[in-house]
């Protein structure tokens, strides 16, 4: 079954290996008929935005998703990042466990969705510390 996506004027997305932008004046509907990595603009995190431990995890999973050719390198990075986070904040282990499961099944899109929750949790944990709001 095809996946139907709607793209607003000027909105970008990653579709397979390509970056697609709606250049027209009105929003358009796309039907994607095979399984390819799809990432919408709002779900994309750039390297500059990956400024916290959990955002870095998100960024890494994103790379796994859109650049499967270099999976081995990203995987090593992923596990080292995860290890650091769990060591620093053991209470994240339940969320990270769920993400790991998706990663091992190579369901990166689901892993990304779960990592959103991890980022929210991270913000909560950081907000407990004074100066936690500062960005690096």
């Amino acid at each position: 079954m095809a996946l139907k996506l709607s793209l607003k004027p000027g909105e970008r997305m990653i579709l397979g290996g390509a970056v697609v932008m709606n250049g027209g004046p009105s929003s358009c509907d796309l039907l994607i008929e095979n399984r390819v990595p799809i990432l919408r603009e709002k779900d994309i995190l750039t390297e500059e935005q990956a400024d916290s431990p959990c955002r870095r995890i998100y960024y890494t999973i994103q790379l796994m998703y859109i650049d499967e050719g270099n999976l081995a390198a990203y995987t090593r990075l992923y596990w080292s990042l995860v290890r650091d986070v769990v060591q620093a904040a053991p209470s994240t282990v339940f969320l990270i466990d769920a993400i790991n499961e998706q990663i091992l099944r190579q369901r990166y899109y689901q892993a990304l969705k779960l990592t959103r929750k991890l980022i929210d949790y991270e913000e909560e944990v950081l907000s407990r510390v004074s100066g936690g709001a500062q960005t690096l």
Partner: protein
Amino acid sequence: MAMQPITLTSGMRANLVSLQQTNSFMEVTQKRLASGKKVNSALDDPVAYFTAVAHEQRATDLASRKDEMSEAVQLVKAADTGIESIKTLIAAAKSLATSALSADTTAAASTLATQYDEVLDQIDLMVADSGYKGVNLLKAPTDPGSTLTVKFDETGQSSLSLQGFDASAVTGLSLVSSTTSAWVSGGAISTANIEAAITALDNATITLRTESSKLANNLSIITARQEFTQGMINVLKDGAANLTNADMNEEGANMLMLQTRQALGTTSLSLASQAAQSVLRLF
């Protein structure tokens, strides 16, 4: 037909190896989380662990002392209830004696005297029934089961001894039965004897009031110690928890530290391939 060998892609293999390395570490973390504590055994941090255990044990010991204290409070209340009822009986006895003073006939006085003796007997029954869990504070101090030592601390060195007092009608409160001190003697009502009985009743009421205030005093001591013990238990439990519980503030601080460390470049993200970089740069 030949079986196809199961092959793993290089990506999956890398995943598996990393997972195996991370697994034991994750297990430890999950165990800690399951118990809500960061120190779970003496091996993790011996000092914190044993200190926490000692705190917990003392808290448990104190909790059992606190239970003993609540039992002591109930004992005192039982004795006080007994005293209140005895006072009521004494008031009844006094009104019987007063009626006897103004009795018209010796027969009427004799009837009142019998009723009066019955009330005195009831006082003794009341005394016998005022015990709580085998201790009766209304029995003579020489009787077994008339004292209770309430232990306050875990060693039992600080304590309060609750001593019974004899509240029985004749031996304890020095009331005189109408047969011993005859209300009717020589065919006439003995006003002097009855008045002596009334005086004895008044004195008994005063004695009971004094004992009642002693009980109230002991009660307030025990209650104060109860509150103190509860406070102490909380302090000990908090102390143990601080030593061993997973601490969200600490986690926050750790995360902040990790963030700083990563920003300083010990963990590099710039291994994104040229292709991925060019894709992501468009956003």
